[in-house]
């Protein structure tokens, strides 16, 4: 920052009130990191101001002022990302919309209007209160709406209703100039020119600041169950996934997990993983209008599982038991994190999942490294973890990572299915997309944010 922090802070105190302008480093510690493993997370810059506006109007004034002063703005949500996407890597402003957390549910149109700072937990709760359901569950419920949309979050329950993009029906955004734009709305059909809303979803805070969103909700399912299918051979597990989808049953989620990591995760949270048979397991969440509908789907899955050499499937039916399973599953990452260097996010066409798995095995053998794998098999999306060895980052980690990336792309996939580019994957983007595509992206960024004040240094390299 060219101007002194005090001087700049004074301007923002005038906009949002002195208590919401934080300049002491010690009080912004938690805003300087996300969930990226420590050894890979970029350090935060030195001179930062944390702003907590309470309205779209205030966000607009902040951006206008920042743009005039050419001060970088780093919008943050719940800081649950895994690629350093919200880390304030340059001197500037951290913009947290946590005070903007209202949610209104429109029961008739099955829509929620949520401010960007509302958390996933708030949204799930508000939907539930209204007798509705928000199916997506990208892990940490402290994630905020703004972040979920900016990163087009995915997670566990994306098989049936899709990822965040499929839920967003309208957006209110603030441009770098301070202009407020309303895009989309509670409509099923809308062909008014280019779809800027869809462009903004997943743009990782580099095009504008999302302040409010209209989000699609679903009726509560009458019945939901979680199945666990154990396998001795992981390729049998992988082969089951497309067979299930071909059978006509569409689960909410199909997760691939391995017993070793599940036991670690369960131990981490003082629990026990309920199924100890089989090295590899599929967790399948099914929902439907009635118990009969769900159980007939269970029978189909049971047959498919048997054809693919699964062991005895286990079922969880109560909310308590299903939440326990999801809780343990969601804690694999936290259990591994201390020993982790990076979490990869390869997505391939579902038919190639087996090939991807084989290729990871090969890499693991070739370099002699432990590569725990789990993920959203129903979406072809696998998380491969690069781990420390003896507490240290292995020297060949770069080669291991490159080999996995290359395998993913060779199999017709991408290097990130849901985590995004953020800071960690910047170097890879130009390796895997064409120059033309990259330059179009850069041009779009320039049009939205000519002074490059919005989350600079993310997605594209600086300069």
């Amino acid at each position, binding site marked *: 920052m060219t101007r002194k922090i005090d001087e700049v802070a004074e301007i923002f105190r005038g906009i949002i009130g*002195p*208590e919401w302008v934080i300049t002491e480093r*010690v*009080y912004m510690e938690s805003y300087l990191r996300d969930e990226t493993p420590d050894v890979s997370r970029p350090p935060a810059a030195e001179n930062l101001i944390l702003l907590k506006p309470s309205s779209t109007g205030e966000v607009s004034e902040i951006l206008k002022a920042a743009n005039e002063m050419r001060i970088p703005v780093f919008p943050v949500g719940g800081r649950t990302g895994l690629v350093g996407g919200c880390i304030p890597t340059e001197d500037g402003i951290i913009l947290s919309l946590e005070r903007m957390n209202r949610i209104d549910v429109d029961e008739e149109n099955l829509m929620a209007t949520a401010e960007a700072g509302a958390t996933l937990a708030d949204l799930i709760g508000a939907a*539930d209160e209204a007798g509705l359901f928000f199916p997506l569950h990208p892990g940490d419920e402290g994630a905020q709406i703004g972040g979920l949309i900016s990163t087009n979050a995915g997670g566990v329950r994306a098989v049936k209703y899709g990822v965040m993009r499929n839920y967003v029906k309208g957006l209110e955004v603030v441009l770098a100039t301070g202009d407020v734009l309303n895009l989309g709305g509670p409509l099923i059909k809308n062909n008014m020119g280019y779809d800027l809303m869809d462009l903004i979803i997943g743009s990782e805070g580099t095009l504008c600041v999302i302040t409010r969103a209209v989000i699609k909700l679903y009726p509560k399912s009458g019945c939901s169950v979680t*199945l*666990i299918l154990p396998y001795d051979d992981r390729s049998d597990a992988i082969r089951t996934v497309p067979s299930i989808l071909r059978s006509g049953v569409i689960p909410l989620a199909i997760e691939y997990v391995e017993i070793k990591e599940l036991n670690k995760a369960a131990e981490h949270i003082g*629990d*026990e993983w*309920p*199924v100890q048979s089989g090295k590899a397991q599929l967790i399948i969440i099914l929902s439907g209008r009635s118990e009969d509908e769900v*159980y007939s789907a*269970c*029978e189909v899955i*049971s047959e498919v599982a048997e054809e693919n050499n699964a062991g*005895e*499937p*286990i*079922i*969880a*039916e*109560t*909310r*308590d*038991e299903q939440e326990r399973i999801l809780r343990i599953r969601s804690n694999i990452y936290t259990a591994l994190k201390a020993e982790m260097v990076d979490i990869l996010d390869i997505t391939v066409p579902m038919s190639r999942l087996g090939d991807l798995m084989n290729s990871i095995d090969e890499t693991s053998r070739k370099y002699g490294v432990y590569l725990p794998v789990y993920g959203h098999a129903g979406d072809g999306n696998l998380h491969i973890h690069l781990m420390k060895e003896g507490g240290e980052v292995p020297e060949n980690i770069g080669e291991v990572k490159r080999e996995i990336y290359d395998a993913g792309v060779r199999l017709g996939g991408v290097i990130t299915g849901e985590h995004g580019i953020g800071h960690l994957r910047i170097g890879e983007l130009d390796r895997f997309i064409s120059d033309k595509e990259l330059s179009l992206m850069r041009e779009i960024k320039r049009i939205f944010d000519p002074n490059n004040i919005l989350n600079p240094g993310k997605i594209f390299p600086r300069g």
Partner: protein
Amino acid sequence: MGDQLGIIVLIKQVPDIEKVRFDFETGRLDRSSAEAVINPFDLNALEAAVQIKEAVGATVTAISMGPKAAESALRDAIARGADRGILLTDTRFAGADTLATSYALSSAIRRLSSFDLVICGEKTIDGDTAQVGPEVAEFLGIPHVAYVEEILEADKKRIIVKSRMGRNYYVLALRLPGLITVTKDVNAPRLPTLRDKIRSRRAEITVWDADSLSEVADTRLFGVSGSPTTVARVYAPHAEKRKGMIFRGNPEEAAEKIVGVLKDLRVVG
């Protein structure tokens, strides 16, 4: 039954406590607001029974009292390892407090030819009384141990358990027939297999009405007429009036204020 233990597990179907809503105007529970599940503590009781069955051989009978819909809880118990389910259902059982509930359940147990061990959950999450187990034991005239946290041994004659009372743990030998109530710490209930779950959906549940217990019980002591306690009123718990001084902004200053408060309260030093 021969050498096999006859184990009875008492289960109750309860609404999912985190989801259920209460209508304070009518004083009624909106049962449609939440799914009905087996009382979580009863799952521990059932798992304890199934573990004994696996270890030394036993037949496990699950008994419940409730509306016809509670059959699903008994089917679930069968999926989880019970051999059969008995449902006490009759409008004459309805409106029972813990005494009338215990009387009806103990009457049903009496009607069964023989049993060795009755296992109950520590308490239910809706009633929260922890009274039914001990009251059933009294009605049956058998000894009981409540709050069992560990089962160490079981055979036809006795069961050795660990229970916490006050500041101490006790390892106790309970002569059978006897009754125990178990806490959540006693085990981690397993999940049923899909196969057992599907099969149990078609399982036959024995249904007994009040008259089917008339030979072993005084049916006037069931339900409302056998219940000495009545709920006079229900209301939402209210938060107390507090000072409500809120410090915001500078944490350093706020902390200073709190330290001042703690000093005034003489808890520092």
